[in-house]
């Protein structure tokens, strides 16, 4: 994609005070709809928690996981959440290092999504355990050779790094909120007070902050690539047909950027509408962001072709069984729907500029995101019905996998959980960085003593 170096847009020139008030205003907005939304999420989470409690007591027999599909919806959720979480590193780190400045107003949205998603990725893994109380056995007694141990390490590390990378550029904004949000509830003011860590905007503070951010956006890259590559290796290093594929690492990473970019487009649309940020999340941002979606989709398409054409050409017996089911058999409708509605059609549509406007692109992004989830379901589940050794003496219903209500309820709760985390973050912090926005518009007023 090509970038315009300056992201000023149709909104014209605003003063710093206008920008600040525009971006702080949503934090005062505790509207009825907001309340409804939060309570709805809480209800879903509570219902999911009840279902999970039941699963905890009765065991994983409540799920549809059986001898064949020992991994089910929870694991495909896990892969999905890890995928979505990578967007933080793509937008905040890669685009920043490539000096794509148009993405600056979007970076915080991507970091919030990343934090919500990676938290739910961790939760999904624990949910999938029959004995979650034994989770500490992984670091304590784990085999360092096992990708599970690597994954445990990188997921937790990425969680910490995501939180830090969200927090660091927030510090100057929190200082503004600390000074401006004097009418906020006490707990909220306390948060601002503590998290602003006495930010005064001195030259030395700016130097330290910029250095910290620079270090973190470089550090997040290897960790982000590791987290999804290791997640893919959980599958790829087994000998299972459909998983034992050398391309899985980059294939998952490419797919992650697709899912995350789509999530960002949806979030941009919602925030723009609900928080009235038309002047900050402009058509230009949607245009550029959707070009990024096309780019990630094209790369993902390239990896898809490689992933399916190479074994498809040779058609080894078990590969053939698996691919026949997927491409022409039982899974084919879902597979082609995902590939066409979630990948090919969005690529074609988004090549046209009108489709990159907020509303149409949000609808397309929804298809892409849902397709991304189904794709992970298709990678995790059907593969398991072609084991290399036959499984014997199992009832007929073991030979297919349909998630139970328990699994669906718990999964919906993780979705609600991620949305709640994002919602609460948006409740308390400005969704577009105030100081960066001002800076990008050529206003240096708030950079008190910056050189």
């Amino acid at each position, binding site marked *: 994609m090509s970038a315009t170096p300056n992201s000023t847009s149709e909104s014209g020139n605003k003063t710093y005070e206008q920008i600040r008030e525009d971006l702080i205003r949503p934090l005062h907005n505790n509207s009825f709809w907001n309340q409804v939304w939060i309570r709805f999420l809480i209800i879903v989470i509570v219902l999911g928690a009840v279902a999970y409690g039941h699963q905890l007591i009765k065991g994983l027999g409540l799920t549809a996981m059986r001898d064949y599909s020992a991994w089910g919806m929870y694991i495909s959720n896990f892969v999905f959440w890890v995928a979505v979480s990578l967007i933080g590193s793509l937008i905040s780190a890669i685009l920043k290092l490539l000096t794509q400045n148009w993405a600056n107003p979007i970076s915080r949205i991507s970091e919030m999504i990343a934090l919500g998603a990676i938290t739910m990725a961790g939760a999904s893994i624990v949910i999938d355990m029959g004995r979650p109380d034994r989770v500490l056995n992984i670091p304590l007694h784990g085999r360092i050779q096992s990708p599970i141990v690597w994954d445990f390490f990188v997921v937790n590390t990425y969680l910490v790094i995501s939180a830090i990378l969200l927090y660091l550029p927030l510090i100057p904004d929190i200082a503004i909120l600390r000074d401006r949000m004097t009418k906020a509830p006490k707990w909220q003011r306390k948060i601002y007070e503590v998290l602003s860590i006495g930010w005064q905007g001195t030259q030395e503070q700016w130097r330290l902050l910029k*250095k910290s951010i620079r270090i973190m956006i470089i550090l997040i890259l290897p960790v982000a690539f590791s987290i999804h590559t290791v997640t893919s290796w959980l599958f790829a290093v087994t000998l299972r047909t459909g998983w034992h594929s050398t391309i899985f690492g980059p294939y998952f990473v490419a797919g992650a950027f697709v899912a995350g970019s789509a999530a960002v487009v949806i979030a941009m649309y919602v925030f723009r509408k609900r928080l009235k940020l038309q002047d900050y999340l402009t058509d230009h941002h949607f245009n550029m962001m959707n070009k990024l979606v096309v780019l990630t989709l094209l790369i993902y398409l390239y990896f898809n072709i490689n992933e399916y054409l190479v074994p498809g050409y040779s058609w080894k017996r078990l590969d053939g069984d698996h691919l026949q089911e997927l491409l022409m058999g039982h899974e084919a409708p879902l597979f082609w729907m995902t590939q066409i509605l979630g990948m090919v059609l969005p690529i074609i549509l988004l090549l046209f500029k009108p489709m990159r406007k907020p509303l149409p692109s949000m609808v397309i992004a929804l298809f892409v995101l849902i397709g991304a989830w189904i794709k992970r379901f298709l990678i995790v589940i059907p593969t398991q019905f072609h084991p290399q050794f036959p499984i014997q003496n199992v009832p007929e219903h073991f030979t297919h996998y349909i998630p139970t209500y328990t699994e669906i309820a718990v999964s919906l709760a993780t979705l609600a959980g991620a949305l709640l985390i994002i919602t609460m973050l948006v409740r308390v912090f400005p969704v577009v960085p105030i100081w960066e926005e001002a800076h990008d518009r050529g206003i240096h007023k708030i950079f008190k003593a910056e050189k």
Partner: protein
Amino acid sequence: MVKMNHMKSGIFKIGSLLAAFLFVSFFGFAQDFAPWPVPDEASVVKNPVEANKTSLEAGKSLYTLQCKACHGETGRGDGLIKAASLVSENFQSQTDGAILWKLHQGRGQMPSFKALPDDQLWNVINYVRSLSKKPEDIIMKNAVVSLFFNEKAEQKELTAKVEQVNDNGEKLPAQGIKVNVGVQKYFGILPISSTSNYTSENGEINIVFPNNIIGDENGELTIIASVDDMEFNPARVSENISWGQINPKDYWSERRALWKNNDYIPLWLLISFTVGAISVWLVIMYVALLVRKIKIEGDKSGLSD
């Protein structure tokens, strides 16, 4: 306010939908153990098949194939999923006809077995009845089984001999006894006898030993023969013999350290993982230190303001 009421009812709808989902989910689970009334006309059907040895053996093999997975080997409902106990007072108090009706119907996770001929189902019912009999009810005979190996030029033959042991310790060849012969493999016993191997009049079965079974690095195999007969106590013998193909000790598969425990961890992996993990966290701590410095700087500057 109309809008709000509308909205509220929307939330309640979604909420109750979810609640209903969960309820159905839990109830659907509990349902398996709910009472299962049988029509009277079905209960009074009589079992026409005598519970003789043939019927019990046929019933056992069908049970193993179709029922064991859920109801467990001994019928205690302790199979792969939670299923009804077939040895419970509650179950055994039914008539054979009632059980047949249930087998025909199926319910929840229990499939219908209507497709199978009734006489086979009666065999299963006879077998299931026998499960609840306490061991002391049946007087079991004792037997010993022994293995003989016979290697001709091109062919290996194996003989398993079953002898019944009388109360006075005499051994006599036992005819018509089913013997399972197999080779011990990593994940169980690989059967080499057919399912209809019954001993001849001299108590023996002969098996042509297949040439393509892989042994250890010396070609050694463990052969296991066991008596599988309802009238006999279990008897079993195992012998080692070098009739397998030689599986050369493969240095690299022996040393496939990635699959082994931490004692075998390859140095390069230990170093990469540890160095990688430590350096990432050192950088994170360094940034934490920088943040601390920002705070100190702020406190200083705040004072001087």
